[in-house]
């Protein structure tokens, strides 16, 4: 089904409630609806059409038409279709019906839209703050256009986040605000009965950096890729690539084929190094440091290779609107092939060793369970979804760059536990190596940067998704005046995956919590593109580390 025919079927179903239906190409559909029927449309898309909720976005358009634009993004993975549902709400009384009761995955993003632009989701089951600091002023919404980008309100020390009450009889073990194994800020409150976890609550966004605000108020189109790349420290290329693709699509810029291949190769190189890094961390989390040392050793030649190709080990600085800045020339082909051959050989040894290793299996098997239906409900992405039998992969479902010309496999396992997520990544790494080889062979000659003549007009929009090592990265760009986007929305895969933590840890032993969280390769900095102060509060009984140790020893 193309975007056009899907749009027509929506028109037949909803009639006058759809104000505007516009198909962009065959795979993107934009509809503008009457805000009152948002829940109805979301319900239809999610429950009847089987669409996956991606993210929502709030845009302050009061300068244009006095309204706030709330956009919900859905994906129909089987039909290669992304759907944006725009609803405009009154600028003086910004409220919209919450779709979380029908689409549970919308929980966080609706709260984020309330925090950032102040459009309150009515009927939201958990209307606590999500992104902003607890002591951030009530009526100051950072993403509104009348708020300066460098604003620093005074801090106020006595405000605390309202906590979720643990179930009757359960105790609370706080982990954080610095998550001990990943050295990143996140605050989990784990509810336990004895050793068994019965639930969890999460407070994050301690590291909100205001990336979207900067992109929409200070930087220009070609400066943003470099900042987008810094959204994530491990897989930055996916963000700059996705952003550039969105702008190119909005402005109708044709990217030269060779540039698409270069992007594809770099994306896959990044996947290999990210999975190697992740496997090391996973080993470290469960106390098997030999895995950490060995995988990171294996990864090192790849990092040197990246420096050779791009000039840097990480944050390659390759992408610009219209193409890439550096070519992969014939004289590095040999290096790439050598490094890949070495990694493949060592990876295969690891591949054979892991499923047979009793230590690893004892820790991974049956822990961190995320049943398929829950995975679909929470719209998790990437290896986390594929480990739960949800066969989604942007490279296959919504091909971008040069993936439509290459042979890409979906690696799916259905045991729904930590083992499955490890195996998915093991397979994917070999697959990625294969894709790099294919791309190197097929790469056509030609320019690597498109000629861009005139300025990018305002008011155009486009969506773009890229399969990051952790899952689907989604960018939406609405072009604006002054050579910068009016709104740039980013969704990193961890944003969806983190919401699955309470499900994954429930029923496990407390000691398995770090690997459960680690198993979806969380990237807190990706999720937190904006800024928050840290406030910890424990009203309920809180154990210290010594108490936990004493309890464990007395058992």
């Amino acid at each position, binding site marked *: 089904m193309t975007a056009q025919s899907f749009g027509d079927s929506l028109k037949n179903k909803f009639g006058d409630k759809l104000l505007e239906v516009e198909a962009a190409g065959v795979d993107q559909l934009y509809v503008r609806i009457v805000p009152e029927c948002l829940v109805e449309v979301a319900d239809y898309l999610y429950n009847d059409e089987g669409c996956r909720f991606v993210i929502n976005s709030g845009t302050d358009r009061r300068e244009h038409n006095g309204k706030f634009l709330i956009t919900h993004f859905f994906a129909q993975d089987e039909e290669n279709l992304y759907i944006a549902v725009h609803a405009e709400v009154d600028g003086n009384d910004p409220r919209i019906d919450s779709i979380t009761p029908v689409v549970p995955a919308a929980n966080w993003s609706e709260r984020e839209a309330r925090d950032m632009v102040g459009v309150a989701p009515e009927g939201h089951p958990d209307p606590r703050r999500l992104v902003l600091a607890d002591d951030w002023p009530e009526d100051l919404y950072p993403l509104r256009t009348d708020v300066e980008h460098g604003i620093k309100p005074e801090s106020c020390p006595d405000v605390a986040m309202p906590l979720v009450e643990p179930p009757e009889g359960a105790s609370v073990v706080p982990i954080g605000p610095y998550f001990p194994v990943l050295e990143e800020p996140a605050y989990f409150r784990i509810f336990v009965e004895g050793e068994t976890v019965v639930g969890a609550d999460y407070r994050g966004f301690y590291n909100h950096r205001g990336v979207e605000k900067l992109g929409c108020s200070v930087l220009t189109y*070609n*400066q943003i890729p470099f900042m987008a790349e810094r959204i994530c420290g491990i897989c930055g290329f996916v963000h700059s690539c996705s952003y550039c693709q969105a702008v190119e699509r909005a402005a109708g810029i044709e990217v030269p084929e060779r540039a698409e291949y270069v992007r594809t190769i770099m994306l896959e190189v990044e996947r290999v190094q990210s999975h190697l890094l992740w496997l090391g961390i996973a080993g470290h989390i469960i106390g098997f440091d030999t895995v950490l040392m*060995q995988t990171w050793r294996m990864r090192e030649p790849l990092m040197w290779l990246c420096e*050779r190709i791009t*000039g840097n080990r990480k944050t390659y*600085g390759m992408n610009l609107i219209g193409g890439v800045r550096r070519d992969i020339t014939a004289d590095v082909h040999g290096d790439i092939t050598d490094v890949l051959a070495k990694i493949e050989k060592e990876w295969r040894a690891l591949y054979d060793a892991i499923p047979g290793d009793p230590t690893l299996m004892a820790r991974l098997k049956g822990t961190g369970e995320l049943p398929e239906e829950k995975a679909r409900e929470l719209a998790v992405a990437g290896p986390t979804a594929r480990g739960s039998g949800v066969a989604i992969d942007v490279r296959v479902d919504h091909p971008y760059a040069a993936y439509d010309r290459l042979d890409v496999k979906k690696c799916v396992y259905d045991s729904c536990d930590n083992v499955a997520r490890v195996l998915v990544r093991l397979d994917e790494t070999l697959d990625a190596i294969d894709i790099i080889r294919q791309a190197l062979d097929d790469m056509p000659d030609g320019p690597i940067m498109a000629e861009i003549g005139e300025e990018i007009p305002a008011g155009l929009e486009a969506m773009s998704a890229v399969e990051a090592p952790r899952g689907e990265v989604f960018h939406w760009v609405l072009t604006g005046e002054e050579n910068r986007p009016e709104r740039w929305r980013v969704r990193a895969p961890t944003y969806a995956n983190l919401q699955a933590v309470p499900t994954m840890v429930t029923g496990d032993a407390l000691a398995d919590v770090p690997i459960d969280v680690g198993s979806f390769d969380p990237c807190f900095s990706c999720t937190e593109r904006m800024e928050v102060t840290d406030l910890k509060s424990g009203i309920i009984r809180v154990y210290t580390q010594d108490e936990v140790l004493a309890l464990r020893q007395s058992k």
Partner: protein
Amino acid sequence: MLSKLKEAILCFAAGIVTLRYPFAPHDPEGEEGEFRGYPEVDVNRCIGCGGCAAVCPARAIMIEDIDQTTRRITRLRERCIYCGRCAEVCPQDAITMTKQFELASDKVREDLEHVCEVFMATCKRCGRCYEPASPLDKIMEPGYRHDEIKRGGQEPLYEPVEASSE
């Protein structure tokens, strides 16, 4: 026990994989790579067009016209992300990405800040600085030839010519 032995052999087989750095120097140039280090500016080539400031993603380059004929370009290189965009757009090839990466300092601001002042022409209409169309036009500008303008702390390009006493 056997698996532990295997593990040990695996680790030994790899040999020494770390670099001797900092006990032995590390030279990214030796990699024949495209490594981007400290951006070196040839102040004598700079014409003050401001292209580098316009593209810098880190907004590390600031342009300020301190009077009608002098443009001050301040590079806060503690902010630099070494992307090399400035070198890419410079019409004069005044900026080169060097291989220098040892930039640790206890006075980052002073050591990594770089200021240069460029002589500009003055617009007859608005009185602001602009880059004249040709070098000849620039020479004709009053104040150019006997400039004692600081060029990044270096000696002036041309010594003022002393009038001969004969």
